[in-house]
């Protein structure tokens, strides 16, 4: 009998600890005034638990406090003019996503808006669906999504659109009719052309090369890879290049490392690996440099992560690589969100707006969908890497 009592007690402690984990002194009081169609009315014992929680949480979570304001803003959207602007990244723990988020936050906060940044628990569209659903509940003004899948988010984004939320994408696009505009880091053909040229240069114009990509369904990765493949077919300049495999490291460091090692083992004549993903290129760079391999690497990488691998001599695995500025991409998405919400642009081709310090941008119609292109990819080589590695 007593053990049952004990188990109930333990269970109660558990609930209390959960409360303590996420409650803060400020917020326990505030929402109580807003019993928005509550499922259960809070009985007395709950107040007791909440009190304990408040006492436990000495340090108030600033992020929570910000989110609180967000909730308050949604209740009266017209009053403040600020609104809540959400960003849904691909996954947590990805440096590129973190830089992008910081740019987004900076742009929105500079304009007086409130920011909600959501990193899904896994790099899957399913996890993003849950996050977007939650944002619809919160009644945010806009959602900027970095899609993990082109199609899987269609239903949930349509639902968000119907709820009056402005939808835009950045970095990786979704089905065009489910979003208003796509903030593209660089044109697909531009990136394909740049990377193909790099492969041509590093191989010396002939030989085996391989691609190390992220997940097999990442929209942007596939578009770039397709662009490279079609260039190889259409341009006789690349006729002697032989693409042996497209490997998928799923944007996980360990899997990318394994895939690189597999490539080295399976193709002894491999000359170049092209990794158009920041996680993949960093993992591959380490493998190649550690093994003192003669295989050269290029692709898209973060300067801060790649600085120690970039160099022209044999001791370094990557002679040069490309990227756009993720902070600027986040900023662009932030300014676009604000412009969409305040109505200064509708998302139609030809609309022009000023994205803060980034300057003026025009919405273009590319391949039948509306896009804003950030700019051409930027080349990082031994001459400029030191200057950029501390930036991002």
């Amino acid at each position, binding site marked *: 009998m007593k053990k049952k*009592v004990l188990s109930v007690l333990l269970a109660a402690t558990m609930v209390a600890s959960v409360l303590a984990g996420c409650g803060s002194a400020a917020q326990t009081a505030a929402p109580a005034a807003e019993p928005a169609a509550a499922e259960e009315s*809070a009985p007395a014992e709950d107040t007791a638990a909440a009190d304990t929680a408040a006492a436990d949480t000495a340090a108030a979570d600033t992020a929570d406090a910000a989110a609180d304001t967000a909730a308050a803003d949604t209740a009266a959207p017209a009053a403040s003019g600020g609104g809540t602007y959400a960003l849904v990244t691909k996954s947590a723990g990805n440096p590129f996503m973190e830089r992008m988020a910081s740019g987004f936050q900076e742009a929105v906060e500079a304009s007086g808006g409130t920011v909600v940044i959501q990193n899904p628990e896994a790099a899957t569209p399913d996890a993003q669906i849950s996050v977007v659903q*939650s944002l619809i509940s*919160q009644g945010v003004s806009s959602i900027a999504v970095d899609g993990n899948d082109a199609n*899987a988010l269609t239903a949930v984004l349509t639902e968000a659109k119907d709820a009056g939320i402005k939808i835009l994408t950045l970095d990786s696009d979704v089905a065009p009719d489910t979003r208003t505009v796509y903030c593209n880091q660089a044109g697909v053909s531009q990136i394909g052309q740049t990377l193909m040229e790099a492969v041509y240069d590093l191989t010396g114009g002939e030989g085996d090369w391989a691609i190390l990509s992220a997940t097999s*369904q990442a929209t942007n990765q*596939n578009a770039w890879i397709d662009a490279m493949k079609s260039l190889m077919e259409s341009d006789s300049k690349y006729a002697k290049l032989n693409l042996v495999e497209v490997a998928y490291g799923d944007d996980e460091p360990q899997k990318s490392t394994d895939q690189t090692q597999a490539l080295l083992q399976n193709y002894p004549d491999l000359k170049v690996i092209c990794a158009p993903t920041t996680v993949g290129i960093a993992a591959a760079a380490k493998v190649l440099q550690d093994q003192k391999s003669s295989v050269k690497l290029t692709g898209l990488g973060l300067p801060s992560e790649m600085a120690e691998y970039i160099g022209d001599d044999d001791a370094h695995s990557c002679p040069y690589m490309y990227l756009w500025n993720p902070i600027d991409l986040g900023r662009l998405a932030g300014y676009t969100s604000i412009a969409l919400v305040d109505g200064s642009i509708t998302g139609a081709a030809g609309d022009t707006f000023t994205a803060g310090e980034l300057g003026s941008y025009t919405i273009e119609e590319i391949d039948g969908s509306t896009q804003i292109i950030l700019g051409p990819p930027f080349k990082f080589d031994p001459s400029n890497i030191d200057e950029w590695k501390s930036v991002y």
Partner: protein
Amino acid sequence: MAGRSGREISAVPESGIKEKLVSWEGALVLILVGVNILGVVISPNYNLNNVLREMPRYLAEIFMMFGMGYILVLGDIDISVGALVCLAGTVTVLSSNAGAPFIVAVVICLLVGLLGGMLNGFIATHFTELPTMIVTLGTQIIFRGIAEVLFETWGNGGGTASMTDTKGLMLLAKKVGPFPISFFCVIIVGIIMITVLAKTTFGRKLYAIGSNKTAAYYAGIKVERIRFICYSLLGLLAGLCALFLLTATFGSNTTTGQGFEMEVIAMCVFGGIATTGGKGNLIGGFIAAFIIVCLRIALGQRNINTQVILVIIGLMLIISVLVPSVSSALAAKRKKAGT
């Protein structure tokens, strides 16, 4: 509880209102209420409409929880179902896009699930020396592998496909008031599965096998046949899960259903079903499932880092497993001190 011989007959379940209230299930109900209060307190948007709107994706997982409960009561485990959901969903989307009418696509979805479950059951019952964890690890890789090959062969490339004809799915995604259809389906399937396990001889046989397989065999129970049935049933429910997941995603991709098997096992274990077999009931799992879902939704609405949410759920799981063992250790100590 002690009989005339002084021995404790622990297998006879306790009954009576008092026992019911202080049982693990009673505690779970309290936690569920607590989680909902927590939701209302921490998020101004935590209300019936929003919670039900966010729920369908999670509801799909609960179908599999019932089947997994049966498997765990048997003392087995099946970690292939997440991949099976992916395979069933993929085949459904591809066949529908190839022109199959919706009703055929539904049958195909359930059939693929059933066949996958039967494959698990066949291997597990014909090669009993193999640990089921390893068998289903193998089939997990096979199922997801087949799905990826299908995408390559019949898809438009890129490991993802969305259903072009969504009329049928729209019907399934409809709501009655604020309640999605899948909610009622979960309740109906739940009632059937709970009753069969708790009230029928078939259910009792599962407990017998889970407690002592050899004894069950000598008692005349067709152990392997029942195990086969349970695996097939879980497969069928994985098909059902895939179907209702489609009503939320309208498409399938290579990561569909990733991690579902672990989430489903977590729901069962949190609900008091022992992975060693023979203990627990599905009502606990059912309540536990809703606790986890409500907690996720509530914390999600506060924009709490998703990784932190996973940590909280993980902690809850460990505590829930510790409670019975700690309390029984305490009881044993007390008994020792008493005699």
